[in-house]
């Protein structure tokens, strides 16, 4: 007699499983496609190379932070400080660069180093003092904002010429920044799928205790993931400098909320253990295309906020999250 078939039954669950796993992602892309259809039919300038370049470049700005945020959320963490860190990074890079090409390299290194330091501090507080990531990064949001203001409350520093040009450069029809985002997107997908570090992120988010007992270096991985998240914020700060040419402290507030929203819309669970690069891209595109369309279609200014709120609520409510 076949004991194992009696025990385990057959394995025809995979189709339902597939749908359960990727259903939300399909839904988000369905939404995005719907917006595209509306855009194409209602505005002749929506589906132009120029506008699409805008859309993808803007997606890159939100998307890079969203990728870092997604990795942190995958470990059942959160990082509320990225907006403030973008602000501080802009100021630091602008001041160090000070308009000189010679300073460009050192400015980039200094800004990324700042990200590493902030990420390490987050990791330390979360790992060693066992404070909830929400609280750690909430405090750090407030503190970094204070630091940003004390560096400068008015525009300061300057990007070098090459650095400003970077923003408009293209590879073929694609803006270089969008290409960069695409590369990071693929790298993140590969990281999650093909590296030990990626698997550990899932393990920690799925069950930290189990991961710890299985010999996963939980603390190291956490340090790593918060550093990566802060690095994406620093990198975004650099991109903003390239976009603006001057360090402006007006930028940065609220980026974290947008990034988290995009990640959640993309089907990543705030409870950890589940993440989807494709979904996050979908979430980023959904928010980006919505904003783009509001402008393109000249939607009545009084209801723009309402439309955005409805899109977000509908997108997050569309599927039930797992866990409780």
């Amino acid at each position: 007699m076949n004991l194992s078939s009696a025990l385990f039954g057959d394995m025809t669950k995979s189709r339902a499983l597939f749908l359960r796993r990727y259903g939300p992602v399909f839904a988000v892309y369905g939404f995005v496609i719907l917006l595209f259809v509306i855009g194409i039919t209602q505005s002749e300038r929506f589906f132009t190379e120029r506008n699409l370049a805008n859309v993808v470049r803007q997606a890159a700005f939100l998307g890079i932070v969203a990728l870092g945020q997604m990795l942190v959320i995958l470990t059942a963490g959160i990082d509320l400080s990225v907006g403030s860190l973008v602000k501080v990074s802009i100021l630091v890079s602008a001041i160090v660069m000070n308009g000189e090409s010679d300073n460009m390299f050192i400015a980039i290194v200094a800004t990324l180093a700042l990200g590493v330091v902030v990420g390490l501090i987050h990791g330390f507080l979360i790992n060693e003092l066992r404070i909830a990531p929400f609280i750690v990064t909430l405090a750090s949001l407030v503190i970094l904002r204070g630091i940003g203001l004390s560096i400068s409350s008015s525009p300061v520093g300057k990007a070098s010429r090459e650095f400003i040009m970077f923003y408009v450069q293209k590879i073929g029809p694609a803006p270089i920044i969008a290409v960069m985002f695409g590369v990071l997107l693929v790298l993140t997908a590969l990281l999650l799928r093909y590296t030990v570090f990626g698997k550990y992120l899932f393990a920690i988010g799925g069950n930290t205790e189990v991961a710890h007992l299985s010999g996963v270096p939980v603390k190291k991985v956490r340090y790593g993931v918060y550093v990566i998240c802060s690095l994406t914020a620093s990198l975004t700060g650099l991109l903003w400098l390239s976009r603006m040419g001057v360090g402006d402290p007006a930028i940065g507030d609220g980026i974290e909320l947008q990034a988290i929203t995009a990640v959640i819309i993309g089907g990543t669970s705030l409870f950890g253990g589940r993440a989807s690069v494709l979904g996050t891209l979908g979430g980023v595109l959904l928010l980006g295309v919505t904003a783009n369309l509001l402008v393109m279609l000249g939607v009545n200014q009084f209801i723009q906020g309402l439309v955005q709120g409805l899109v977000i609520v509908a997108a997050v409510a569309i599927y039930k999250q797992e866990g409780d």
Partner: protein
Amino acid sequence: MSDYILDMRNISKSFAGVRALKDVSFRCQPGRVYAVVGENGAGKSTLMKILAGAYRADAGEIFYKGQRRDNVSAGEVIDSGISIIYQELALVKQMSVAENIFLGREPRHAFGILNLQELYERSGALLKRLGIRLDLRLPVSELTIAQQQLVEIAKALSQNADLIVMDEPSAILAGSELDQLFEIISNLVSQGVTIIYISHRLEEVFRIADVVTVLKDGELVDTRPIDQLDRPTLVELMVGRPMEEIFPRTDHHQGDLVLVAENISTDTILDGVSLEVHAGEILGIAGMVGSGRTELARALFGADPLTGGSIKLVDKRSAKWKNPAQAIESGLVLVPEDRKSHGLFTDLTVRINVTITILSRLTRFGVVQRDEESEVVDEAKQRLSIVMASADQEAQYLSGGNQQKVVLAKWLETDPDVVILDEPTRGVDVGAKFEIYKLMRQLNDRGIAIVMISSELPEIIGMSDRILVMRDGKIAGEVPVEGAREADIIQLAILGQSEALPA
């Protein structure tokens, strides 16, 4: 130095001022099975967690393979060849079978890149060695509990463990699953692997152990070879008093019909289950893990919605219910299987835990009447002999056994007509088991009907007045209590028919 692979000397450990282990020594030779037994709170799990590097001992030394080790991390413990299979299965539900097996020690190329080919080949080979077929890419959340346990064992094997600790592996397995486990264990032992086997089930201990260590209240009672022990002696060592009878029998008669379920189905697994429950009886429900027993309990209780069929209580309080609140109101309660995570409010006081189900009775205009509440808690304390410092103590500071009693008290306070007990003695030590059985009989005497779901066949046979066996979400058949044999039940549970097994 010595032929002991593991030598733990004079280990002590306290938590939050409460002593968990005192001066316990424990050692193992290679290629043998060591059983560690003791009541709940005796310190077995703590001892193993210290071995695993999850806790640090306050005092004592550990020698492993002749070398002293201090403050090693969980990862280092695994690397040194010790693997531990925890009672709460240590698997990451969202990850695949293969990823779980090699979690923490993934085969890799340079730069931390996974060697997926090797991962799948090696995990496939391991499962083959265990004689099971599983989709390696399936997330563990899609597996049954029994399948998950096998993945755990595969994980231990993958670590090339010299020493495998199994913390109550049988608690969630039944019948043939258990046989399969024992087969795997003897296989491993013959390969020179040392097994430390922690269990409450004495039959299993006598079946597989070479040496038995008994702990009580955090202290070592005795370590003896199995052939110097018999059951009564072992029970006496564990409980500290002799125990004549495990299953209390009283004469009782079947009362009136109280609960009728007709053809109930759910979208989980239940598929047309009908049953009747009479006042004052114990209806035992047996079956494999995953056969739908727990789902049946949840459906009866209104915790999962019915997609077909009906359930009703036949007496005066007869009512329909759609959720647990209404079920409790109607006189039916469910004591869940996983009491700690589904039953206890660990952060809250004993008082709140005990009275949470009967707040409407204890409140006037929504305000809790303190005096009446204290009476209820005192009475529960007496009736179930709960040991606690005060009613305002947080439940987390009670011992495991007392936590169980608090959970039971909570349900009994509702004065139910029907009590569904899902695995009432799972993870409970011998002494407490006996108390629970006595309690069940007392409930019967008061005319309360009990539906008991259990994986322990001796318990099913020893306690039930009638036995139903489930398979694939259906009732496979009823086994007459008089002269019931474990084999008959297993037969029904696996094959769904009650013919004799071919020899």
